[in-house]
């Protein structure tokens, strides 16, 4: 059934029989969205310093243009006729029948990504204009942001795997530039290097995977890949699992899946808008996007790769969520949370939940960007990343507080915010596909998510202010994007409520599939109330526990230790105290042995291996260079010239300069010759 669906969609599409519109000029010129930010990058680099707003106006203008354009496409795609258009320009014929192409693709998936990048991008760009006021290198900052947006669009708009690699590494470069924005500190440049490098290691998988697919199929086109997968092509079959796992390794790097996630928390060294746009909403989802784009490969041929992918995703979603409980840096809390959420998406896609994974990608982009921007606003106010320097900020920063809470509730998965619907869809898919253990781990993960968000909100906005100076609400240019993102964080879930088909808009599932043919994944027609209740219960429990353990009262109790012994209030407090103990005990259990163990594994085993490989390479390098190269190979070279010079030293003694000695040698030689001729020969 599933196979039939896929075969139909791709074969029908190839024959042009598919029931989809082309989108007219909006599709034909959609390439402008890819080129625009790239041009903006060039313009800002060359002329940005002379502009009034140091280039920010160009970057924001281009993003606004992109948002309008992609919104039109989104609306076109909502109708009964979807949009399906593709345009490729040959950039090289390389022999062996292979062709490299650049171009753009307009279909449900890429429209969704265009829109997310443009929407979140515009909010972040506007916000950054306020956030970066007075900072160094603002011009370059906006140039790099534009480069990122351009590369990301090149990535998601790509109709083939080669262009994907170009965009893939382009966003990596932008990430490197922006994480290391304050490169005067070695810590920051090291973080940038770590991000670039970890990705580069994973990219080996991607590149080899792409090569295998390209050579075997004779084409890098997604379309051909999907068709080959749908037909169970004999060419692709034998290498499908290898290629799939290699592509997945690439995706693990970009999407920070265990054990490649190590770069993402460090990447928080970049300015906060960067973290919001790249390391939460868009760039890190490129791996998920790749898995979705090549979904037919995993669905049809490389099913053997799926357990590995699910394992990696599950470890990531649960283990990394725990880490968010023990860190003090608010951006790192969000970073670990991002890693954990990416784990959800990866698990969902790997389990066959094409729509579920992408839907979570969609909603997560909004609320996580919102959370990061909120955190940035707080950091802007208190000049510290540490939650121990915050507290009680809800009075000082009402807009930030409200939007941050909205974002947190959405992330925690509270009904009816967007996160609830997307998380529920993932759980439902896992259950439907029969991964029950994974499903319950995901429910536990939802609990952890709610827990650490409650902790973050409590420590940041409640209790007493523990920092220095007087925090103020951020300027309107920063709070406006917060509210702008809060809206989709609340309502984005509506587009994919099971069984509900909104008039005109349609459903998320139908956006993603080419019209009237499903992608072949399961999409629940009605909500599974039991499962939804379980997920919601886990989230509420997590919030409650976090509130109890870290809320203002707990803080107060900690601050005034003897307060609990005030007579009269004691029994009530005792009960609370008891609960606190339970909560604290649970917190302690989770925090101390479990999370620390994960943390330890993270720092010593995985990072240790990375460091050891580094040290080993360094040692090996010096061994090879000093021992083999300089002594060994160069030694031979020197030996030859030394030998020649030694021989010369011996032979030159004959050159006495005395003519008679020469004559004597001559005669002796002549005699020798005579003797030879006469007697020997």
């Amino acid at each position, binding site marked *: 059934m599933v196979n039939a669906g896929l075969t139909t969609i791709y074969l029908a599409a190839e024959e042009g029989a598919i029931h989809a519109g082309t989108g007219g000029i909006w599709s034909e010129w959609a390439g402008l969205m890819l080129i625009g930010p790239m041009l903006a990058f060039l313009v800002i680099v060359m002329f940005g310093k002379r502009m009034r707003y140091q280039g920010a106006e160009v970057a924001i203008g281009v993003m606004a243009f992109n948002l309008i354009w992609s919104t039109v496409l989104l609306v076109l795609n909502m109708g009964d006729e979807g949009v399906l258009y593709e345009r490729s320009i040959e950039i090289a014929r390389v022999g*062996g029948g292979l062709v490299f192409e650049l171009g753009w693709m307009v279909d449900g998936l890429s429209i969704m990504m265009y829109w997310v990048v443009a929407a979140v991008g515009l909010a972040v760009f506007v916000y950054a204009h306020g956030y970066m006021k007075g900072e160094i290198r603002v011009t370059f900052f906006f140039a790099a942001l534009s480069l990122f947006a351009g590369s990301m669009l090149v990535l998601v708009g790509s109709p083939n795997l080669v262009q994907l690699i170009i965009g893939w590494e382009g966003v990596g470069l932008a990430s490197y530039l922006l994480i290391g924005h304050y490169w005067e500190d070695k810590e920051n440049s090291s973080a940038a*290097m770590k991000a670039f490098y970890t990705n580069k290691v994973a990219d080996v998988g991607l590149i080899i995977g792409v090569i295998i697919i390209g050579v075997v199929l004779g084409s890098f086109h997604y379309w051909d890949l999907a068709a080959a997968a749908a037909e169970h092509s004999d060419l692709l079959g034998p290498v499908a699992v290898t290629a799939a796992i290699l592509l997945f390794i690439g995706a693990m790097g970009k999407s920070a899946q265990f054990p490649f996630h190590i770069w993402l928390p460090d990447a928080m060294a970049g300015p906060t808008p960067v973290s919001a746009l790249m390391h939460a909403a868009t760039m890190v989802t490129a791996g998920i996007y790749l898995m979705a784009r090549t979904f037919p490969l995993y669905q049809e041929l490389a099913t053997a790769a799926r357990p590995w992918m699910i394992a990696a995703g599950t470890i990531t979603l649960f283990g990394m969520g725990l880490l968010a409980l023990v860190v003090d840096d608010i951006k790192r809390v969000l970073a670990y949370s991002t890693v954990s959420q990416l784990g959800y998406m990866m698990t969902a896609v790997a389990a066959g939940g094409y729509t579920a994974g992408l839907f979570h990608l969609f909603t997560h982009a909004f609320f996580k960007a919102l959370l990061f921007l909120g955190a940035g606003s707080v950091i802007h106010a208190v000049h510290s990343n540490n939650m121990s320097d915050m507290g009680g900020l809800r009075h000082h920063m009402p807009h930030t507080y409200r939007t941050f809470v909205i974002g947190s509730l959405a992330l925690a998965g509270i009904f009816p915010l967007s996160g609830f619907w997307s998380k529920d869809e993932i759980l439902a898919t896992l259950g439907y596909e029969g991964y029950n253990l994974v499903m319950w781990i995901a429910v536990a993960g939802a609990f952890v998510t709610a827990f650490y968000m409650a902790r973050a909100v409590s420590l940041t906005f409640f209790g007493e202010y523990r920092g220095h100076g007087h925090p103020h609400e951020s300027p309107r240019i920063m709070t406006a994007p917060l509210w702008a993102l809060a809206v989709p964080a609340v309502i984005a879930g509506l587009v994919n409520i099971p069984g509900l088909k909104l008039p005109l808009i349609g459903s998320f599932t139908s956006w993603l599939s080419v019209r009237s043919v499903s992608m072949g994944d399961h999409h629940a027609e009605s909500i599974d109330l039991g499962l939804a209740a379980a997920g919601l219960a886990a989230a509420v429990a997590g919030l409650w526990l976090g509130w109890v353990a870290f809320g203002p009262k707990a803080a107060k109790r900690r601050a005034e230790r003897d307060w609990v012994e005030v007579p009269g209030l004691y029994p009530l407090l005792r009960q609370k105290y008891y609960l606190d103990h339970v909560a604290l005990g649970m917190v302690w259990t989770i925090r101390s042995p479990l999370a620390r163990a994960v943390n330890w594994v993270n720092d010593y085993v995985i990072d240790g291996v990375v460091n050891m490989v580094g040290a080993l390479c360094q040692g090996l390098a010096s061994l090879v260079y000093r021992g083999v190269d300089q002594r060994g190979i160069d030694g031979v*070279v020197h030996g030859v010239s030394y030998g020649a010079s030694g021989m010369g030293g011996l032979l030159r003694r004959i050159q006495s300069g005395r003519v008679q000695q020469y004559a004597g040698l001559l005669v002796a030689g002549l005699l020798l010759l005579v003797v030879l001729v006469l007697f020997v020969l």
Partner: protein
Amino acid sequence: MELFEIWALSLIVFLPLAGALVALAIPKEREEAVKLWALGVSGVTLILAVIVAARFDFGAAGRFQFEVDLPWIGAIGANYHIGVDGISLPLLVLSALVVVLCVIYSWKHWDEPHNPRGFLVLMLILATGMNGTFVALDLVLFFIFFELVLLPMYFMIGIWGDRTMRKIPGFKKEVETRLYAAIKFFIFTLFGSAFMLLGFLALYFKSGSGGLDPTFDIPELIGRGFLFEGTFAWLVFGAMFLGFAVKVPMWPFHTWLPDAHTAAPTVGSVLLAAILLKLGSYAFIRISIPILPETAREWAPFIAVLSVIGIIYGSLACLAQTDVKRLIAFSSVGHMGFVMLGIATLTEVGINAAIIGMVAHGLITGLLFFLAGSMHHRYHTREMSRLGGNLKLMPVLGGILGFTAMASLGLPGLAGFWGEFMALLGSYQPLPGLSTDFFRTAMVIGAIGTVLTAGYMLWMLQKVNLGEPSSEWAGKKFHDVDRYEMIAWVPLIVLIVAVGVYPKLVLGVTTDAVVGLVETAFSSVLGG
């Protein structure tokens, strides 16, 4: 225009030489006149090369065009046979371009002992040698041009090179780095050339068997490929391999390269990296493979092994360097490893990869050496431990260095990527008959090499570009990139991006020629 067809290539080759002779007639003191003259001559050469490229019939890129074939030394049947096809055209244009840029760059940057006339004359002679090698279609002619580049480079390194004293292990006395490097470069290359000449002579004599006149003509020899078989062919390939491999340079014949690069004046390093290294790999494609295709298949795994060792080894060695120029020099070993890996696959994709890799390496590493030279000019040191915060002291220079390092580590969208990617692509499926498992292993190791490449480039950037400037430089005034540097570098930057975004600029010319070459050479295994 018939006249142009006939004279174009000869002019491109010999105009610089004639220009050099005329330059010698200009009084030494009139430096401006000498510089203008050199610029004019190299500029006209470039314009001619560009016109040749424009009038080139891209539909017949596999055929030799602008061909001239005249009797030259009748006694040995050596002809003055020149021509370009799709394989040599990009390299010819690159060579003409880089010489012009070098003249512009050196306008205000002279290493001691100054003497612009002498330096420019050498540069023009070098141009003749390089351009000549790329168009020669006769082995004797090829050999002469191939060797002609040695002399000017020897003098450039030996006279304008680095004067610091250096202790060489195994030698008692300290020697000047420039002398050591120049002599090592010369002798190393000559050693290889001796074997190469033996190989050429063997081909010549063997081509005379079966009642035919012996010939040095390359297309003619390709047609007589059936005469060269067995051990004879194996040995001839080996002899030529030695000559070409030293020039590339392939591991383990590379040790002259870091020394020569480190000691050479900036422009010398640029020419060495951008063009001279290409002569060797070009010769593999032009001579070894088409004339001895069957033997090439026997040698291919061996070449692949050396290439892969070179990739890993060069990258590791880079990580151990403290000298910027030496690091870039070792990076060439790695990059040329990719070029040779591409050639070793003997496929269309692989050989195409080699050519675009050569062009990209010429652009990128040439620019890197320009940058290293300019930095040396300002800091008077190349020790990375003393540098740092370059981006703060000189934002434009630092920015260009960052860009070029990214291009060098093979960032997709810039020129360096295609060579590496296509070399790996070719290795996945080498020529039928070659061991697939073997080449796939090579592909994986090569891919790991790209990671190491990224490692040392990022490391270099962090050391040199990022961070706060050390107290040694803080507060000092550095003048950022000047006009001459900018004019010399911008074309390279533009080309790196252009080739990166639109590789057809190179591959559009080469593909037909390479396909023709592979199909002719390996028709037996390709089946038809």
